[in-house]
């Protein structure tokens, strides 16, 4: 196993001196790349890579040396994939830090995005608002759960009486989501089921207290132009929203009519302003009288990223 100077760990590359890691930074941005890697970000990623590969610092004999859990040469192999092949950093290290969670991710499952962290906050607000009302069990659903990010996050906020059922069509996603649920000891609270959207939810039809989803919403024609890390590595099943990008969103809005109980809450993530405005209008006018308080909610960049509301 390798050893590393503590200083390297703290600064990322300084201290690796003339080694190949620094060289890779220079390689990272060919002058003609239309979508270049940002070297500041790369530096930070390198630091994180070393962090994740660090062994038990407390047991090192020499206080200046930090034991590594992997061989430096192997780490360099991973780093090359990151830099030259644009493999997403999260797939390289096998995890993503999301909210206060560290979720296992890998090829075949979408890396959860920071924007989506807000979905859990939206749910939490509703749970707090409802507290004291009713006394039965409350079932929440996360459709297209991917790594299980939203489902695990919700498991922590739905309260004593709440439980979560999450679905995904992808076998890999179901495996990863189950793993993440178990890692956070939420097995009794969060159940992962394989199947298409509402299909695995017959037993809770009309009984859902809340329903959230971040379904694929990118218009098919935009898929070829995606950032290399996304387009080359992340599953198309997790991104492709059909011609307008809204095939799945519309299906979910329609399904909510029959799966939510009266007063039940929904929140969907969308591609942004245009889709959110369309959906608000769609739910108010086309699915008339089924929903109330339907509105678009902005993300931190000011883009209308979510549509929320309640079943009448």
């Amino acid at each position: 196993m390798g050893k590393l100077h503590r200083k390297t760990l703290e600064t990322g590359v300084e201290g690796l001196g003339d080694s190949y890691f620094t060289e890779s930074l220079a390689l990272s941005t060919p002058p003609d790349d239309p979508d270049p890697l940002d070297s500041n970000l790369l530096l930070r990623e390198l630091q994180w890579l070393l962090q994740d590969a660090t062994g038990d610092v407390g047991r090192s004999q020499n206080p200046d040396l930090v034991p590594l859990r992997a061989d430096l040469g192997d780490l360099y192999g991973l780093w090359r994939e990151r830099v030259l092949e644009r493999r997403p950093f999260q797939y390289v290290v096998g995890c993503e830090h999301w909210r206060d969670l560290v979720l296992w991710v890998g090829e075949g499952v979408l890396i959860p995005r920071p924007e989506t962290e807000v979905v859990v906050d939206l749910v939490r607000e509703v749970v707090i608002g409802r507290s004291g009302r009713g006394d039965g069990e409350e079932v929440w659903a996360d459709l297209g759960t991917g790594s299980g990010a939203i489902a695990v996050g919700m498991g922590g906020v739905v309260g004593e009486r709440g439980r979560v059922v999450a679905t995904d069509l992808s076998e890999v996603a179901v495996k990863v989501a189950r793993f993440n649920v178990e890692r956070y000891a939420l097995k009794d609270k969060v159940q992962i089921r394989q199947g298409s959207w509402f299909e695995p939810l017959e037993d809770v039809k009309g009984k859902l207290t809340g329903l959230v989803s971040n379904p694929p919403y990118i218009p098919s024609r935009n898929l070829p132009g995606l950032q290399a890390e996304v387009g080359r590595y992340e599953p198309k099943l997790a991104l492709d929203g059909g011609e307008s990008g809204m095939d799945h969103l519309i299906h979910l809005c329609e399904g909510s009519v029959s799966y939510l109980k009266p007063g039940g809450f929904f929140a969907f993530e969308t591609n942004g302003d245009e889709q959110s405005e369309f959906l608000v209008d769609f739910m108010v006018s086309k699915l008339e009288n089924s929903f109330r308080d339907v509105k678009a909610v902005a993300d931190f960049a000011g883009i209308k990223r979510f549509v929320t509301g309640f079943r009448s």
Partner: protein
Amino acid sequence: MARVISLQCFSLARLLQSRPSVRPTLLFHHPRFRPISASSVSSSISDEDYVSLTEEELMKQCEMDTFKASGPGGQHRNKRESAVRLRHVPTGIVSQAVEDRSQHKNRASALARLRTLLDLKVRKTIDLNEYEPPPELLQILPKKSTIRGADSGPQIGPNNSKFASGMQALLDLIFAVNGSVADAAKNLGLSTGALSRLILSDDSLRMEVNELRSSKGMRPLK
């Protein structure tokens, strides 16, 4: 269907032959990522009581300008940029956090820093004609203060967590008397020397007072 790849291929996790790291990233406390230096924001007066705002209310007053103009976002981007920069719109105070790998946690740190800055930077207006030091201020005054009753208990020093609120109230007063330590001391039943010693006993208090004094063309306390 998604590319079905067995879980075995997850790289570093496999390389390490163990689960991916779940250790919080305690090793890294970057000294360079401090909130914006005090000197770049001058104090402002406000009747708004920011201290009592909840997290959500405070957040609503902020712009999170890190991600402005960053394209469509969401599923389109692999964004390792988890840094958060908050701008508190009513006061213009900025705080940021980039040390964590999750945006959520950086937002919480940035918000906590913003609170500290607001405490330090935003002064309440005081009517000197009817001034009565609030109890939290009395608590940090030395016993010899003539207006400090026995019921104020022992003097609270800078290491006590209650010191901060007393310090806010003291800064409000010093601000109201335009930085004059002598005038503030009179209002507190103390000698100028005793109040100076109190101010010098805490670094952030001293810096705030001196910043105000230098903006009024006065000598700094040393």
